[in-house]
């Protein structure tokens, strides 16, 4: 009886193993087929970033003069809108399949982007709380980290997906 059971499980294993191997192979082949080249990746991301970058520019229009004239709550509203747009852009571009050779570099870039988003959120909060100096310090960090993020993906030649100070008011 025991011998029969053992024989049965061996037969199942013999059938299941090639199927599993085939499935894994097909899966990795599909994944490889899905991995884009760097140019394809850049053009895909740029098409996502373009409308959002333009929306950011519209949302932030006059923010710097708002800060200059101490209308911090108005500026906070604009920063809040920019934060939402930035967050949604990062959310949209995160799941896009990445070129195999650039995965590590892009992972670093996405870390920087999340930091950027966090800074934008913090700037909004500090402006809302009327903490001018704290907001000012965070803006400096935001600009600095934006430039660092740009350097990580310099070779990609991004335009709309790169950080540009001029878009923020």
């Amino acid at each position, binding site marked *: 009886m025991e011998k029969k059971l053992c024989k049965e499980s061996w037969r199942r294993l013999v059938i299941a193993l090639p199927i599993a191997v085939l499935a894994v192979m097909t899966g990795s082949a599909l994944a490889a087929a899905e991995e884009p080249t760097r140019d394809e990746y850049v053009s895909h991301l740029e098409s996502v970033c373009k409308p959002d970058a333009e929306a950011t520019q519209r949302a932030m229009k006059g923010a710097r003069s708002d800060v*200059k*004239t101490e209308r911090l709550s108005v500026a906070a509203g604009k920063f809040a809108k920019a934060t939402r747009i930035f967050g949604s852009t990062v959310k949209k571009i995160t799941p896009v399949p990445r070129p195999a050779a650039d995965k590590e570099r892009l992972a670093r870039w996405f870390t920087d982007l999340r930091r950027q988003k966090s800074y934008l959120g913090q700037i909004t909060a500090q402006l809302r709380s009327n903490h001018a100096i704290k907001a000012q310090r965070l803006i400096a960090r935001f600009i600095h980290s934006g430039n660092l993020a740009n350097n990580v993906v310099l*070779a990609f030649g991004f335009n709309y997906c790169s950080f540009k*100070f001029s878009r923020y008011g």
Partner: protein
Amino acid sequence: MSSVLRRGSVILAFALAALGLLITTAVRGERAQYGSLVVSLGGRLSPLSLPREHPAPVAVGLEGNLRTADGSPLPRVSRVEIGLPQQAALSTNGLPTCTRRRLVVTSNADALAVCRAALVGRGRVDLIVRVPHQASFAIHTQLLAFNARINGRRAVLLHAYTAHPPLAVVLLFRFSHGSGRFGTRLAASLPALGSWARVARFKMVLWRRYVSRGRRRSYLSASCPIPKRFTAGFFSFARIAYRLDSGRQVSVAIARSCRAR
């Protein structure tokens, strides 16, 4: 004694490290890549602390770099345009001018001898020369900037000179004022560099104090117009755009901060 020496060497090491960091930061600046061409621009305003309400004398330092990521030859630049913020006040009232004719085929010393009164800046330009069927080589030129007036409009004459190999080039940068973030523009066509020379790097500081009608003036002035509650402000500092021989335009802009005093 040894502890004093050790402390001294530690301080020196820190100072050197800080200086190294400063130089690295200054050289790099912000970068942008177009295909394999990497364009960078660094810059600084000196002093950083400026009055909130009225402009004060400043020096503007700019440093640009062109290189290719894959080591391929640099493209030829046919035109360069430097944009500065509209708020930057430019004063040439009573400042002597120099003419191109007086600078042509002169060494640095000769150029200074004839136009020192019009000097508004100094710097350097590095060129890469590619002669067909020969290995490319670099030329490091010293740069002098002189105040000029062309057809009644303000301009800057850049005199680039090197003794090895002997080379003297005069470039005319015209000022123009327009709208936008970088309303003050300095633009020049670069045919004078010839077809074999490629601009690889430049460094320039514009600064001049002078006296006119008993008043001390500055060639460049700026303020840091921020509310009392803030101690620092951020602004679009400069933009450089190169037009390449192919007709393509590449540019990079930088933002900097100022402190209110």
